[in-house]
């Protein structure tokens, strides 16, 4: 006999994400799901952000397939950090976040960054309980990326174009990245940044503070 099921396959994850979100809201903490391909500069952007004396209390959840290098980089700056090893999984999901929430002093924090696994595809699919998604594209990855990996560009509130100091050494077309990204997502806020030189970091911090305060 035929029976209706009519369920979203990701429903269990979405439900857990909502639970996480309630815990974050209760602690009045603004949560950012930070995504990019491997090596685009997620941890570098966090280091720049944390060492900029923003006056904000920031915590970090580090997601990696293996290892704790990123968490150690954050810990050296004196900020609370938890490392998740996904053991092969290509993205963080709501359950993984739920399991480490007790390890962060949420009540004393203004912002939590969840640094997702380096991957331009899967992390955009899974809600983890964040307020917003922010993505990084390093310009050396090429200007074809928005149309090749549209979902992350569509889901993100801000796009950080990192490694802008390398522009003179590449053939990258920044105008095309901007145009295609905005076609996919007209609301997208774009920052041209170099974590190496500090270019664009003040603008990013200004926006970050504003978004965190508004919520």
């Amino acid at each position, binding site marked *: 006999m*035929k029976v209706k099921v009519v369920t979203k396959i990701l429903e269990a994850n979405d439900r857990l994400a909502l639970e996480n979100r309630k815990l974050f809201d209760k602690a009045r903490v603004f949560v950012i799901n930070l995504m990019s391909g491997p090596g685009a500069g997620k941890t570098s952007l966090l280091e720049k952000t944390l060492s900029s004396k923003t006056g904000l209390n920031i915590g970090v959840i580090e997601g990696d397939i293996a290892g704790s290098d990123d968490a150690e980089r954050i810990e050296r700056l004196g900020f609370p950090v938890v490392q998740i090893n996904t053991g092969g999984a290509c993205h963080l999901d709501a359950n993984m976040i739920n399991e480490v929430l007790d390890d962060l002093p949420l009540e004393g924090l203004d912002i939590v960054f969840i640094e997702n696994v380096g991957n331009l595809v899967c992390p955009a699919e899974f809600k983890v309980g964040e307020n917003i998604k922010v993505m990084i594209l390093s310009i050396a990855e090429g200007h074809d990326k928005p149309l090749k990996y549209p979902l992350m560009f569509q889901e993100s509130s801000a796009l950080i174009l990192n490694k802008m100091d390398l522009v003179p050494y590449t053939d990258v077309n920044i105008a095309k990245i901007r145009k295609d990204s905005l076609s996919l997502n007209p609301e997208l806020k774009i920052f041209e940044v170099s974590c190496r030189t500090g270019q664009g970091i003040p603008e990013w911090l200004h926006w970050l503070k504003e978004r965190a305060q508004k919520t």
Partner: protein
Amino acid sequence: MHEASIAGSLLEIVSEQCRKSGYRRIDSINVKIGRASGIMSDALIFAFDAIKSGSVAKDAVLNIESVPVGGHCRDCNTVFTVEEEYVLNCPRCGGVSFSVTSGRELDVVDMEVSDEG
């Protein structure tokens, strides 16, 4: 790329429904997968077949309906579908004032079950 975890969630959903309703065997499952969902049908079937043994769905065939990306243009009031995984312009009038209405589906629709094991 994460078809294995999607297959796991799918198996959990249908197994749970069988537990609740007392069905002993699933013969087939129909799901809808949007073309912009990032999930490849072949990989999903492969993953599902790999994990279904020993479960209530051990003999179940997974039927996948692929849903193209589609939208509605507010400028020319057209309902359209596209070949790509994204929409940049309305294919009819070229306008950018459209909403995407399909293509992100990851839904279980129904299944064929029986009471005998």
